[in-house]
């Protein structure tokens, strides 16, 4: 998922400072350029007057609005100037950091990036991220330390290199006005596609969403996540992917435009769905569905497909660039983004509708009330329902080999 941004509202310094005390003891020092912070107070003090650039996918109006209208003013109250850098795709940001790493830059253009998955894993391998700093954040205490989604990001240990921001669930979406025999499993979905030629397709990997769909299919054709090992190995690849590509080749003639081509990215698939050219779309950000139906972009009959197989879930994060010259300010923003006030505001369907990463059981009554007050969406079920049967993501080492094999075996005629 493209990590999305947005944080709302004011988090008082008092609250932050209060929470800090308990955490400071176990915090690992964060390496700034040469700057090391031993306590949250030092970070807050150093952050004053810093300008933090948050690079994030900019094609989501609600996401942009949340960051600019809610998170930015709240950061300003903490003495940090936050600027959003809207980008067309998350690798643009990673690419920039890698160029800066290559050039030995220590005061780069990127401070925070909304990131997860392969972008995170590859970046970590190349030293793009500052690590070991999230323990300093007071609000990390409100997350479940044993939450698997927050411990590993697509199989890559998070290691304090990125602070959680929201959770997401891969979601298939269909138009209930045109799809009457609703599939309940991936097998049925493919059977439906076969019976309704031209009405289903998926974005071409390496598009993020298309890539997830292909990995979902890898689970589906092999009997689920219990069978396919999450860690990558060439043997596992040779054992499990032939069935996947056979199936994808078999289904190809029944796809949109007879499978002679695929949407280049999830946006193109969404456009096809919005125009009624296909009956299914898919997203890692179901939060935006409510708004898209409300403003008439998507058909009124839009519903979320519930699959027995379950779908993969993940969390997305705010990564701190190792080349950033404003690390203290970036940490203050990351902590602010994790606050119950911001997380609740962000979860509001009218605002952005992103699922929280906080463990609601760890919140006090007032904080919990913020989440209890959230309205239900007419389109999107709650996170608990969506994430039922949630499957773990394969490790990011799987991603590139699968994407490349897909291009070679399925896309290329």
């Amino acid at each position, binding site marked *: 998922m493209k990590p999305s941004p947005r944080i709302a509202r004011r988090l008082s310094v008092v609250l932050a400072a209060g929470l800090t005390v308990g955490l400071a003891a176990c915090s690992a020092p964060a390496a700034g350029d040469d700057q090391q912070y031993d306590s949250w107070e030092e970070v807050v003090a150093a952050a004053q007057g810093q300008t933090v650039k948050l690079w994030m996918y900019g094609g989501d109006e609600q996401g942009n609005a949340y960051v600019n209208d809610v998170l930015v003013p709240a950061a300003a109250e903490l003495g940090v100037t936050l600027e959003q850098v809207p980008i067309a795709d998350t690798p643009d940001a990673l690419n920039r950091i890698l160029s800066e790493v290559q050039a030995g830059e220590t005061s780069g253009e990127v401070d925070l990036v909304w990131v997860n998955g392969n972008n995170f894993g590859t970046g970590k391998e190349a030293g793009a991220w500052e690590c070991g700093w999230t323990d300093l954040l007071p609000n990390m205490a409100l997350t479940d330390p044993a939450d698997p989604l927050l411990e590993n990001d697509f199989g890559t240990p998070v290691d304090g290199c990125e602070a959680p921001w929201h959770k997401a669930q891969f979601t298939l979406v269909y138009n209930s006005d045109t799809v009457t025999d609703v599939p309940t499993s991936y097998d049925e979905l493919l059977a439906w596609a076969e019976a309704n030629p031209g009405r289903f397709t998926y974005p071409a990997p390496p598009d993020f969403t298309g890539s997830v769909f292909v990995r979902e299919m890898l689970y589906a054709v092999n009997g689920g996540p219990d069978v396919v090992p999450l860690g990558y190995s060439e043997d596992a690849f040779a054992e499990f992917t032939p069935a996947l590509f056979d199936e994808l080749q078999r289904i190809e003639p029944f796809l949109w435009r007879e499978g002679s*081509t695929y949407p280049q990215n999830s946006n193109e698939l969404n456009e096809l769905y919005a125009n009624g050219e296909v009956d299914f779309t898919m997203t890692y950000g179901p939060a935006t569905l409510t708004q898209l139906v409300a403003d008439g972009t998507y058909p009124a009959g839009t519903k979320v497909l519930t699959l027995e197989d379950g779908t993969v879930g993940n969390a997305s994060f705010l990564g701190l660039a190792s080349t950033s010259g404003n690390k203290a300010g970036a940490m203050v923003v990351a902590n602010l983004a994790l606050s119950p006030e911001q997380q609740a505001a962000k979860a509001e369907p009218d605002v952005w509708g992103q699922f929280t990463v906080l463990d609601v059981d760890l919140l006090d009554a007032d904080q919990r009330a913020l989440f209890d007050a959230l309205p239900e969406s007419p389109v999107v079920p709650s996170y608990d329902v969506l994430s039922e049967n949630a499957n773990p993501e394969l490790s990011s080492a799987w991603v590139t080999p699968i994407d490349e094999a897909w291009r070679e075996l399925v896309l290329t005629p």
Partner: protein
Amino acid sequence: MLETPGPGGALPTRPRASASGRLRALLFVAPAVLIAGFVVIGGIGVALVQSVGLMPLVGEAEFSLDAYTANADDLLTGLGLSLAIATASTVLSCVIGLTAAVIITQGRISGRVVAALSALTIPVPHLIGAAAIGLLVADSGLIPRALGLTPAQWPDLVGGPWWVAVVLEYTWKESAFVALVVAGVLATRVAQYDETAALLGASRARRLRHVVIPLARPAVIVSAVIIFVYTFGSYEVAWLLGRPYPEPLPVLAFRLFTSISLTSRPEAAAVAVVTTAVALIVVAIGMAALKRTPLWR
């Protein structure tokens, strides 16, 4: 883009060389030459160095041509596709642009309308031109809507096998360019020649063939070279209106450059080197053609 006067320039020179004059002239050209030279030579040079593995993102620098062979198939397919798109766009732009130029110079009211409308497209950035063409001819675009055609009845212009929307966008913008450049030439010179030829009894068709077209030829050649090189090396339009396979060279280069796999940067640089080499060859061919044009010198 402008027409290029060609190396050496076709402008009159006044040989008044003195030592101080030369120094002054050198100082005058130095800033511009340094900037252009740095970008061109630096850009090509670094791309070349990266492409042979001497500037890796991670690991040891080591000379190798792997980057050129790793995607050999994609590189060849992309080369063919890019050449085809650039050729189609260039030919269509020149034909439509030349027609428009003749109308502009001959017509009165109709000429002015065409002149004004073609000028309108000049300041449109290509990215926005691509968005506009998409909104017009995609499956859900204005034209199929107006004709009441369903996506199944409407041909796959956007993202289709023939890259029609991409060529349309280039042709739309670049035919306006040709029209303006050629109309500029014809306006200054065609009137006298044309009238003389008419007085001597040349028919309309013959005047077009023997007067107008030869007069326009140098400008058309220069425009064609510029259009070809631009459409061959441009990214946004082909990416926005194209399909995932096959990929034109700039799209391939971009996918590799922004790919998160760490080995793909040299491969992107290799594609960049190939693209530049082809562009330079085309410029050389264009210049040679220009020198053969009787009216050029």
